[in-house]
């Protein structure tokens, strides 16, 4: 049985703005789940409803089968790291962290040990006796994270817990925090707009957009089997290339006509029979998606003209005009091609993501029905 259940949860602000629409989500004990989405997608509203700082307009939130959405925050057994840090200014960092454990009624030595342990984890030992106003934003954020993690709670809610940290520290803390959470078997929900963070920390990711849950799956599944065009283009860096297309069958081949008379032709055996039937139904309304890593540049491919060649230090991003639009390819090495040069583009059938062109729903991934 799942541990935290959100069933048909909706949030409407002022009777007009629908921040969260009919959200269903089940989280198991010991899972780390990321709510991922762009600003205003409803992820923070969802988190605050779980914490109890926002009323649930409709629906239910249950922990261990007990409805908690009517309870005051104090009785929900949740710990939270706030996006705005929200440290209490008159207390030192140490007191701020210790303060969170007050309800547990520990003796001073135990509190001290736990504060020290958590401070070591988030690299805050040096500033424990300073006041929030005299430490940097990144340190305040780590203090806020420490204050949430130090508590023994049923559920840990982390709202953008690492947004202000410098990249090296962020990478280090991701590993440590994940280890800390897993080691103690804690259940955590993380809100972020950074997919690297979500991928690194979370067991499962809930992708949200416009108040609606788009897909709830493991990071790998999100990447390999996006449920719709939104998740497909939202997950992955650089984003997936998408082309509107039509489909026809000729000479035992499946041919996708892209813009500008360019077409991708494949042996029909590469597509399962039921997929071929499904594609027939949608023949004029198809969107073809290809991950930049799967775009191969070769002599004998379809014609494209290089627009930009960007070397990022560890990989090259090449943007080329292709089929009436542009296509981005990632190469794990320096590439010599220059802007204006002609290159050939090819895509293997197993790398194709095919979506319904009108609804955006996924039809197939790699030749198999989605």
């Amino acid at each position: 049985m799942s541990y935290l259940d959100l069933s048909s949860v909706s949030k409407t602000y002022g009777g007009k703005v629908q921040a969260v629409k009919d959200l269903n989500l089940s989280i198991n004990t010991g899972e780390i789940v990321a709510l991922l989405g762009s600003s205003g997608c409803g992820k923070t509203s969802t988190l605050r409803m779980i914490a109890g700082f926002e009323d649930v307009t409709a629906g239910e939130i249950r922990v261990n089968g007990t409805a908690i959405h009517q309870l005051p925050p104090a009785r929900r057994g949740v710990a939270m790291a706030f996006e705005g840090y929200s440290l209490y200014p008159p207390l030192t960092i140490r007191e701020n962290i210790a303060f969170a454990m007050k309800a547990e009624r520990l003796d001073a030595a135990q509190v001290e040990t736990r504060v020290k342990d958590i401070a070591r984890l988030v690299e805050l030992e040096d500033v424990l006796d300073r006041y929030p106003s005299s430490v940097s934003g990144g340190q305040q954020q780590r203090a806020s994270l420490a204050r949430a993690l130090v508590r023994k709670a049923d559920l840990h809610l982390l709202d953008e817990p690492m947004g202000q940290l410098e990249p090296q520290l962020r990478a280090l803390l991701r590993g440590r925090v994940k280890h800390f959470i897993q080691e103690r078997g804690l259940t955590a929900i993380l809100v972020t707009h950074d997919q690297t963070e979500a991928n690194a920390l979370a067991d499962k990711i809930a992708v949200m957009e416009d108040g609606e849950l788009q897909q709830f799956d493991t990071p790998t599944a999100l990447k390999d089997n996006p449920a719709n065009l939104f998740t497909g283009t939202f997950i992955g860096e650089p984003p997936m290339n998408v082309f509107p297309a039509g489909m026809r069958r000729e000479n035992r081949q499946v041919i996708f006509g892209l813009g500008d008379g360019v077409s991708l032709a494949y042996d029909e055996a590469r597509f399962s029979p039921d997929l071929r039937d499904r594609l027939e139904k949608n023949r004029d309304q198809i969107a073809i998606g290809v991950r930049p890593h799967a775009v191969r540049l070769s002599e004998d491919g379809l014609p494209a003209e290089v627009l930009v060649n960007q070397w990022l230090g560890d990989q090259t991003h090449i943007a080329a005009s292709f089929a009436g639009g542009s296509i981005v390819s990632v190469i794990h090495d320096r590439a010599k091609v220059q802007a204006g040069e002609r290159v050939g583009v090819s895509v293997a059938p197993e790398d194709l993501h095919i979506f319904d062109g009108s609804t955006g729903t996924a039809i197939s991934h790699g030749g198999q029905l989605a």
Partner: protein
Amino acid sequence: MHHHSPIERVLRGIALLIVVLFFMFPIFWILLMSLQTNETILRSPPSIVFEPTLSNYAAIIAGRLDSNVASMGIDFMSNLMNSVILSVGSVALALVLGVPAAYAFARHKFRGSEDIAFTLLSFRFAPPLLVLLPLTLYFQQIGLADTYFGLIWVYQLICLPLILWIVRGYFEDISPDVEHAYRIAGHSWFSTFRRISLPLAAPGIAAAALLAFIFAWNNFIFALVLASADKQPVTVGALAFVTASGIQYGQIAAAVVLSITPTLALALYAQRYLVEGLSLGAVKG
């Protein structure tokens, strides 16, 4: 600190001195007057060289007004006491009512909350005399006229909006998440209000209370209309110095010195709260 040349520092000092003298002069002059007899005050041209006397203070504290014609009793010390009771009482009541209300207005947007808050502010718009005359009639009917409680109630017209609006701003400056962080650690909203919000807004509450106290202390018209002799504060009591045999400037000055002392002392004491109040904005929200 910036580095300045000595000349610059001297000039700056002189400029500050002029400003201080300009603003403090009336108080300084009153202080001098309070130490003179009516004769030395009224001589022409005025001079700051005189033989100081404490007779004015003695007369006021003893409650006897001796003019060159006659001697009459005044009750200035009980006026002073009335001022203290009325001002402290109204500020206390306004704090008890206004601070929770300010918190509610700052944290909860309920239907009509802005209208109610504005209505409370609008008490300050009406000319007091307009409300006072009908109020007097009502107060006489329900037996509140000429009582401390009735006066303190009416003084809420001055104190409550002031405290409500100033303190509301301070509460709004505190990030709600600071309170949330405390609540989620297992505390009720009331203990959050008491342990987190109140201490954080304390400088603002002190500043608002001080202002309200000064306004209440300086009020004249409410007490003039609603209070009889034994409930009158100093502002109304000072009228007694205008006697048939002339205006007792020396005693008025001594009375003024006595009556501004509490507010002045309070303001000096609360200065650090006002400064803290200003730095509250530095808290990351």
